[in-house]
């Protein structure tokens, strides 16, 4: 019956469709040319210039947008309500125009309104406004950049986010490692630990209330939780053996981590409400680096149970273990994309480190970055970009350099993330608004 209906549909379609149809298959993926004017302002001229500058930096760093030089602009937008002369903006090749207004309210807050115009369709795509404390003006710029990004790409932005990382200072023999956090553009750097004990693998809770990490605070590696508001820390539990590689579940209520006992490492689940601990794997091989899928139903981890470190997935209760990587070399630190379509990992092959991607079933493996040591992939909250860290080999003077990088999921546009000094082990936060 279904086939008959389809047949009838095609009969009908062939009769009634008499217009001219042309198929356009494929497109180019160049950055969208955008014009961002200075925001109109009656009081604070500085923010009228600074906020568009932050927006421009955010958009250009994504490599999905190309902001046209302000000197080319023909029309000066003096008022927020002024309608663009679209022909003038078309003439300079802008596809999209962004214009806004900054004002100070009686409540002492900064109010920012903005419009996004489709220059060629000659219509407004969206208009919005936001307000915040004057000291928080950078955040409002990031929020506007996220709105523009989402409106023009259809995906959530990632500009109003933070990156936690390990700030490194000193030489190899006496290196100080401190937990630090900064905005994704490098601003507002803040140190969260004093550097007296080594800290590694920080991870944000999806609700942003806590950071979990591994520290040698008590002399042996153990998992700690830090409140992001009060910076108070607590040991997850003085477990027998080492505990490491912790990550939150998508609902922020559980932790999955590795624990090593008598030389064997397995994966455990820890309920933060009940403090109940559940062993998920029980295998003589080393099982480590667990990470939840975004829906919380699966966990990806790496294990050497096949003789070499490979990636496996299992259900959240530890059942249904399936190997997903079969390539040459070793695979480590798998991280499930927030949008669920990829698993990022570190691969070691032939003495070289790579950052790679594969589908959750292991298909379509791609290597997108390489280096003497590249490690610790972490996803931007929109699943479109990754951050990782790269270390250079030691030079003759015994110096090494560790820096953070970001890269597009397409494998293009690798760029260094600006940090004060050396940095490793990045962890990208969820979107903050």
């Amino acid at each position, binding site marked *: 019956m279904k086939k008959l209906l389809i047949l009838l549909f095609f009969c009908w379609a062939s009769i009634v469709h008499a217009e001219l149809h042309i*198929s356009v298959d494929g497109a180019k*993926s160049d950055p969208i040319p955008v014009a961002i004017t200075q925001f109109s302002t009656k009081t604070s001229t500085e923010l009228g210039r600074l906020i568009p500058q932050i927006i421009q930096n955010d958009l250009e760093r994504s490599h999905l947008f190309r902001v046209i030089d302000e000197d080319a602009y023909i029309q000066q937008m003096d008022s927020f309500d002024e309608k663009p002369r679209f022909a003038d903006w078309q003439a300079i090749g802008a596809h999209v125009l962004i214009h806004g207004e900054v004002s100070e309210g009686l409540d002492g807050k900064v109010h920012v309104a903005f419009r996004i115009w489709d220059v060629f369709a000659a219509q407004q795509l969206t208009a919005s406004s936001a307000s915040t404390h004057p000291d928080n003006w950078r955040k409002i710029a990031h929020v506007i950049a996220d709105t523009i990004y989402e409106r023009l790409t*259809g*995906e959530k932005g990632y500009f109003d986010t933070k990156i936690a990382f390990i700030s490194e200072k000193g030489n190899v023999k006496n290196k100080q490692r401190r937990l630090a956090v900064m905005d994704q553009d490098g601003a507002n750097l803040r140190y969260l630990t004093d550097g007296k004990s080594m800290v590694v693998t920080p991870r944000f809770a999806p609700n942003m209330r806590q950071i979990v990490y591994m520290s040698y605070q008590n002399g042996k590696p153990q998992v700690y939780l830090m409140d992001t508001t009060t910076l108070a820390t607590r040991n997850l539990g003085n477990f027998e053996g080492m505990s490491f590689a912790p990550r939150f579940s998508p609902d922020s209520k559980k932790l999955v981590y590795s624990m090593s006992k008598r030389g064997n490492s397995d994966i455990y689940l820890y309920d933060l409400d009940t403090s109940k601990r559940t062993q998920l794997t029980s295998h003589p091989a080393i099982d480590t680096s667990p990470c939840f899928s975004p829906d919380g139903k699966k966990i990806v981890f790496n294990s050497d149970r096949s003789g070499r470190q490979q990636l496996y997935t299992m259900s959240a209760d530890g059942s249904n273990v399936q190997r997903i990587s079969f390539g040459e070399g070793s695979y480590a630190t798998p991280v499930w994309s927030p949008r669920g379509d990829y698993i990022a990992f570190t691969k070691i092959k032939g003495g070289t480190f790579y950052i790679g991607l594969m589908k959750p079933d292991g298909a379509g493996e791609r290597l997108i970055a390489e280096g003497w040591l590249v490690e610790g992939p972490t996803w931007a909250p929109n699943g479109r970009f990754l951050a990782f860290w790269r270390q250079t080999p030691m030079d003759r003077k015994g110096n090494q350099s560790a820096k953070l990088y970001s890269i597009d999921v397409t*494998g293009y546009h690798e760029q260094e993330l600006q940090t004060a000094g050396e940095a490793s082990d990045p962890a990208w936060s969820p979107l903050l608004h």
Partner: protein
Amino acid sequence: MQRKALFLSLGLHILVIGLMFVDFHFTKEYTKAPPAILMVDLTKVKIADKTNLPQKSVAKKQPPKVEPKKEAPKPASKADKPKQEVKAPEPKPQPKEAPKPKDAVAVQPKKEEKKKEASKPASKPKPKKPDYNLKSLLASVEKVRQDTSSSAPQEEQNEKALDNGTEGRMDKILTISDKDFIATKLRDCWNIDGGAQGIEDIVIEVRVLLNQDGSVREATIMNRMNQPAFKSLSESARRAVYVCAKKGDESPFKILADNYADHYSDWKELYLNFNPMDANVF
């Protein structure tokens, strides 16, 4: 149970067969008279420009000045009969009417003509002339041409046929190369985020209303899909139409205004199906 299935099967078969007679448009072609053999001067008609040649040329009315019956068949070449080919004389000069050799490749001579030709005396033979078969074919072609409904000169006939053939749906009129030209131009104007999730499943239909000079009066997104990227992607497709239209002589729609001005009513409403499949980098 089996009887029920039998009746169901029988009923469906009757329905499908009935639909074939009622709805299948291709069945209608069998009701038409077989199309006349049409000579195409390949030196004057570019294949790419006339790819959708006429289905209705036979049905097209002939201009009044053409009266096929009055024009008696012109004597064809005497080298028509195969057995006489060796001694075939130089054909009487008929340069204006003899089509070019490449035109005649698929045409077969008729038997009736052979009898007439055989009774005619042969001219002086030129034994080493190599193109006997060619001449035979030329003569046959000439005869065939005279037997067809039109007796107008070849060029005129071709022009008429082409004119006749450009009637009907714009899909038939627009040549493949022009269609490709428009699609390629639009593809160059369409700028998307190739890394966006799920775009490979998205198809956007944009209806474009065009002015007579090829400028865009209106571009409207006609469909909706649930993918998060659809809204921005569909807007980028609509933007591509406007961006392309603003490119002056480089506009993909200018070719419609320039080459198909007489068919404005057929292309003033254009449907574009944008499919980003090739842009995905994965």
